[in-house]
């Protein structure tokens, strides 16, 4: 599929799961896999690292 931001070719590994983050190699935008049906993925912009993120 193509990057929703810059239209570059976005390769999503077959074993990627919902909730994982993929980064566009061209523009660097991060996307979260929102849903996955076979090889068809729906992407949404990943959340920014929050102040309360961590362990």
């Amino acid at each position: 599929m193509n990057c929703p931001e810059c239209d570059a070719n976005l390769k999503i590994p077959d074993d990627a799961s919902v909730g994982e983050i993929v980064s566009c190699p061209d523009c660097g935008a991060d996307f979260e896999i929102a849903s996955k049906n076979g090889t068809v993925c729906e992407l949404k912009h990943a959340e920014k690292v929050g102040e309360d993120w961590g362990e």
Partner: protein
Amino acid sequence: MPKVRIVFDRVRLEEKMLEEKAVELGHDTKMIDAKITNVSTESKRSDFDFGDVVLERCVSYFRGLHFTACLEFLGVPVFNKFEVANNCGNKMITSLLLKKHNVPTPKTYFSFSSESAVEVLDKEGYPLVIKPIIGSWGRGVVLLKDRDTADAIIEVRELNDGPLDRIYYLQEAVKRPPRDIRAIAVGDQVIAAMYRTSSGGFKTNIALGGEPVPCEITKELEDICMKASEAVGGGILGIDIMEDEKRGLVVHEVNNTVEFKGLAKVAKRNIPREMIEYAVRSAVK
């Protein structure tokens, strides 16, 4: 077989390892995205598929904490418990509990205004380590070597003016080798430990590039970890320990949603397996 659910907001390697191991152990396993789950005061456990036990693994502390409150409201067994998450998520509460339970811990000062923080620094002398009371991966942790550094950090905090910026957590700079110890406690056992060496600065977080090196689980390490675990309420915990030149081991942090991809590389025991088995065992008691 008990049903295992893993609540997440971002899938890291740890969540994938936990899911894989739960499946391998034969559990009906599902991943649940906290971001798209709605709960209300009218909700019932039967409205959801939270299985027999939940591992709460959100990377956002507040999201995970509040989701845990909802799970407990619904009567779903969850690890860690709300009280434990609350105790570990806030460094000030953790420090108070460690001291109260006689767990050796660095001397730490709490101030509730910038003026009071400066007063402590002037009285106790430099260096002291300032840490945000909420937060992880070493972010915002600064070694205050002198008054100029302190003034700069305090000014930034005042400009940010977040509610938590008004709480000043100042800790002695422990004299120690350039490393610390991360141990994982699961229930009443320490299942793995490693040294985290600094990648240059004074911080040793793996998230900042600290290198994991295996650490022997001695009786002394096991004892201090178990005391720290009991102090915060027990469960699945990442305990951070420093080797003070004079006092020996001191616990400075206890982590609630422990990351373990670094430690898994050097651990003898299978960390996700131990976590899943403990959660299931504890939930079906």
